[in-house]
């Protein structure tokens, strides 16, 4: 069995120093790995992420993360990623990594993802170039997620980690009009096709924690404002 701690949307800034530190220092008492589901920062500056990185560096279990849309606001995503990597975090964007604990190998496939909407109410790659680019961004992300899931096909337990939501279930509580900006069914298709044990995402602060893919795989929205806890803990492979 492997215990997975997860949180997203911590939105660190210069005013956040120490906010989660007491809980982060104790993660090893509750979990074997910590997953971060994007929106590490408020505006995506290196200065902001360094506040978080200093605290993450004190976590005593492996940490794996993806970026979120806020981490792109200042056009410094490479710097944000590098600061987290310097703190020892495995940052994933169309990539996968593994962690082994007590003979159980966890494979994590990660992407930021993007929007578009959900089956029956989704944008299409049609019309203006801007609309085609929007949907192509999500399609590319879904393709990269598929590649990452295939890369950890042999793991005992597999998690798909993303920022945007792959299902509408976990968005309930958000305004229906903004669902296309909160996620896309395209991110769900590779998960159901290739298999996983759990999907984790953030982004939807007013959504709810629990959902499921059309193929029956558990989905959890771990945005901090949804959890109202420093992180959730999931036990897998037991």
């Amino acid at each position: 069995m492997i215990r997975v701690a997860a949180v997203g949307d911590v939105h660190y800034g210069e005013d956040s120093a120490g906010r989660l530190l007491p809980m982060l220092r104790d993660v090893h008492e509750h979990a074997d790995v910590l997953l971060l589901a994007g929106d590490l920062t408020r505006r995506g500056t290196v200065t902001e992420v360094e506040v978080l990185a200093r605290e993450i560096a004190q976590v005593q279990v492996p940490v794996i993360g993806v970026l979120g849309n806020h981490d792109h606001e200042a056009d410094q995503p490479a710097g944000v990623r590098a600061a987290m990597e310097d703190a020892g975090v495995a940052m994933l964007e169309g990539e996968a990594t593994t962690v082994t604990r007590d003979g159980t190998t966890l494979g994590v496939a990660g992407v930021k993802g993007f929007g578009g909407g959900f089956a029956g109410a989704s944008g299409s790659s049609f019309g203006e170039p801007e609309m085609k680019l929007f949907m192509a961004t999500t399609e590319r992300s879904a393709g990269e997620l598929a590649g990452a899931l295939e890369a950890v096909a042999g793991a005992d337990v597999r998690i798909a980690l993303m920022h945007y939501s792959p299902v509408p279930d976990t968005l309930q509580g958000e305004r229906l009009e903004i669902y296309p900006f909160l996620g896309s069914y395209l991110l769900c298709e590779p998960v159901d096709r290739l298999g996983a044990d759990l999907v984790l995402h953030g982004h939807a602060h007013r959504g709810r924690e629990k959902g499921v893919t059309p193929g029956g795989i558990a989905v959890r929205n771990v945005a901090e404002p949804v959890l109202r806890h420093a992180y959730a803990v999931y036990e897998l492979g037991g």
Partner: protein
Amino acid sequence: MDARDHYLAAEIQEALARDPRLAELHLDVTVVSGAVHISGEVATEERRAAVLELLRERFADRDVHCHVTVTQTEGPQAPEAIA
């Protein structure tokens, strides 16, 4: 909804998102008969103060009611076994 209320709500929502002190995309703004109501949660007390500061700077002539609160985060959530 009155057209002025409608566009004022949109203007405030956009200001909350774009102001570099805030970058807040998750606050609700409603305007009824010129009275502005802002609600939702932010991560820190400093950000709640920044919302008030922005409103004072840019919308001082409006009847503004700020109901924004700071998210209260507890320790780890109880473990859940995923089948």
